[in-house]
C-alpha cells in the first residue's frame, strides 16, 4: 500500500500554492491603449457640449450678452493667456489654496485622531464637525470680513472653515472602518498605544484619510473661490474669483465663462495630477484597485 508520506510534503504544498494563488491582474495591455481609453470619452463629451453650445448660439435663442459664441470665450481666454494675466490669476488663487490646504491638513489630522480615539471629544464635537460640513463656507465670508477686514486672513479663515471639517471627518471615517481584528493583532504582536497608532491605525485608515483629503481639497478650492468673488480688494491681488467678479460687474459674459473654465481647469487638474495617482497607488497596493 502506498504511504502518504512517500510524497514530498514540500512538493504538495508548493503545488497547492501554485493552484490556489489568485491569478495576477493582467498588467494593462498597453499604456497607450489605456491612455486613449481614459482620455477619449471625456474629450468626446467636451466636444459634444461645445457643438451644442455653438448650435444654440447660432440659433440665437438668447441675446449675445447672455450666451456668447464659444469662439468669443476662447478669444478672451487666449488673450488673457497671451498677456500673461491668466497665469497671474491662477498663481494668486492656487498658491493661496495650496497653502491653506496644507494648514488645514496640519489642523485636521490631530483633530480627526482625537475625535476618532477619545470618546468624550467625539461625543462633544463630533456632531458639530459633521454639521459644519453641510454649512456652505460662503456663509462664513461676512463674518470673516467683519473680523479680519478684506485681507488675506479672511481668505484663509474661510478656506480653513470649509476644508478642516471634511479632512477630519475623512480621517474619522477611515479609522472607524478599520477591521477590529487589526488593532487586536497589533496588541498581541506587542504594539503599545503609540506604536499601534503609527504602525497600524494610520496605515489602516489611509484610504479613508485620502478620500477626506481629496474632498478637503475640493472644499478648499470652492471656499476660496467664494471668498474671492465676494470679498475683492486691490490689497488681495487678483485671483480667479476676482477675475470672475470683473466679468459680472462689466456684464461681460465672455470673461465670466473664461473664468469658470479656468477655475474648473485648476480643480480638475489638481485632482487628476495629485489625488488620482496617489489614491490609485494606495488602493492598488492593497488589492482594492477595482474601481480605478
Amino acid at each position, binding site marked *: 500500500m502506498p504511504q502518504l508520506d512517500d510524497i514530498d*510534503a*514540500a512538493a*504538495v*504544498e*508548493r503545488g*497547492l*500554492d501554485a493552484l*490556489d*494563488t*489568485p491569478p*495576477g491582474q493582467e498588467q494593462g495591455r498597453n499604456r497607450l491603449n489605456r491612455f486613449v481609453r481614459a482620455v477619449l470619452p471625456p474629450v468626446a463629451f467636451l466636444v459634444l457640449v461645445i457643438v451644442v453650445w455653438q448650435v444654440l448660439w447660432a440659433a440665437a435663442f438668447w441675446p449675445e450678452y447672455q450666451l456668447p459664441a464659444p469662439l468669443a470665450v476662447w478669444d478672451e481666454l487666449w488673450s488673457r493667456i497671451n498677456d500673461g494675466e491668466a497665469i497671474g490669476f491662477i498663481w494668486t488663487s492656487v498658491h493661496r489654496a495650496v497653502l491653506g490646504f496644507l494648514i488645514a491638513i496640519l489642523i485636521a489630522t490631530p483633530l480627526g485622531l482625537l475625535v476618532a480615539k477619545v470618546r468624550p471629544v467625539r461625543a462633544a464635537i463630533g456632531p458639530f464637525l459633521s454639521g459644519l460640513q453641510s454649512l456652505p463656507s460662503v456663509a462664513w465670508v461676512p463674518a470673516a470680513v467683519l473680523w479680519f477686514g478684506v485681507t488675506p486672513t479672511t481668505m484663509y479663515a474661510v478656506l480653513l472653515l470649509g476644508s478642516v471639517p471634511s479632512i477630519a471627518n475623512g480621517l474619522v471615517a477611515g479609522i472607524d472602518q478599520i*477591521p477590529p*481584528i*487589526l488593532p*487586536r*493583532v497589533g*496588541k*498581541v*504582536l*506587542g*504594539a503599545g498605544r503609540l*506604536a499601534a497608532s503609527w*504602525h*497600524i491605525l494610520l*496605515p*489602516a485608515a*489611509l484610504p479613508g484619510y485620502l478620500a477626506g483629503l481629496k474632498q478637503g481639497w475640493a472644499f478648499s478650492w470652492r471656499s476660496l473661490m467664494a471668498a474671492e468673488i465676494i470679498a475683492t480688494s486691490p490689497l488681495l491681488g487678483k485671483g480667479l474669483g476676482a477675475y470672475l467678479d470683473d466679468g459680472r460687474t462689466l456684464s461681460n459674459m465672455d470673461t465670466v465663462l473664461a473664468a469658470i473654465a479656468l477655475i474648473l481647469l485648476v480643480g480638475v487638474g489638481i485632482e487628476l495630477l495629485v489625488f488620482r495617482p496617489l489614491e490609485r497607488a*494606495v488602493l492598488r*497596493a*492593497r*488589492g482594492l484597485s477595482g474601481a480605478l
Partner: protein
Amino acid sequence: MTATLDDKTAKPATEHAVRLAGVHKSFGQGARSVAALAGVDLDVAPGQFVCLLGASGCGKTTLLNLVAGLDKPTGGEIELNSSRPAVMFQEAALMPWLTAAANVELPLKLAGVSRSARKTRTGELLELVRLDGVGSKRPHELSGGMRQRVALARALASALHSSDESAARPSLLLMDEPFSALDAITRDVLQAELIRVWRSTGAAVVFVTHDVREAVRLGERVVLLSSRPGRVVQEWQAGDVSGVAEAALVDTINYRLREVISSHAAA
C-alpha cells in the same frame, strides 16, 4: 503523559508553560452578567500540544483571549511562564498594506530588533513555513492557505524573537481555529505543516477547535469543554494513537461531545 519532544529542547526548569487555576470570566454586570468560563483548570507543559475542543459557547475563544492578555479574568489565576504568547486567529488578519515579509517583520520591528537581525529572522521564518520566495507579495496576491502560513510565521516572530533572552523560557503558541476557514485539502496539508513547525520550534501549543478529528490528529492532549458556562469536562491522551485506535478515540470523544451538547436541549 508521554513527552514527544525532540531532545534538542532541553528539559526546562519549569514544569508548565501556562497554568490556569479556577479561571472565571463573566461578561456584563450584576444580575444580567453571563458566565463564559466557570472555574477552568488547565496545565500546559512546555512543548506540549493541547487541543481545546467544544461546541459553540464553550468559551474557547474567551479562554484564549485571557491567556493572550487581550482580556482579564473575573476570577482565578493565569500563570504564564513563557515569553509573550504568539496568537493566531481564524482569519490571517495580515496588514493589507504590507508585503508578506514586512508582516512577519512587524513584531520584530515593534520589539526594536535591529534591521539586519530582522531581515535574517524574517527569512528564516518564511523558510520555516515554506514561503521563501513570496516575501515580496502582498496579502491579496496570496491564497488563503499561504496567508495563514504568513500569519503563523508572524506569530512565531512575535514569540521567538531575541532568541538568547527568551530561550530560557518556553514559548507558547495560541491558535484560535486557524484552519476552519480553509478548504479541506489546504486544511489537511496545513495540519501536517503545523505539526512539523511545532516539532522544529519546540513551542507549547494551545489549539482551539470544534473539529474532533482535527483535535485528535494534532493534539497530544484533547480537552473537552462544556458550554455556557465553559469548564473542563474530560480529557484524553491522543499523542501516539493512530489507525484503528485513532478512529475509536474520535468516536469516543464525539459521543461525549454530543452528550454535553444534548444536555443543553432541556434548558
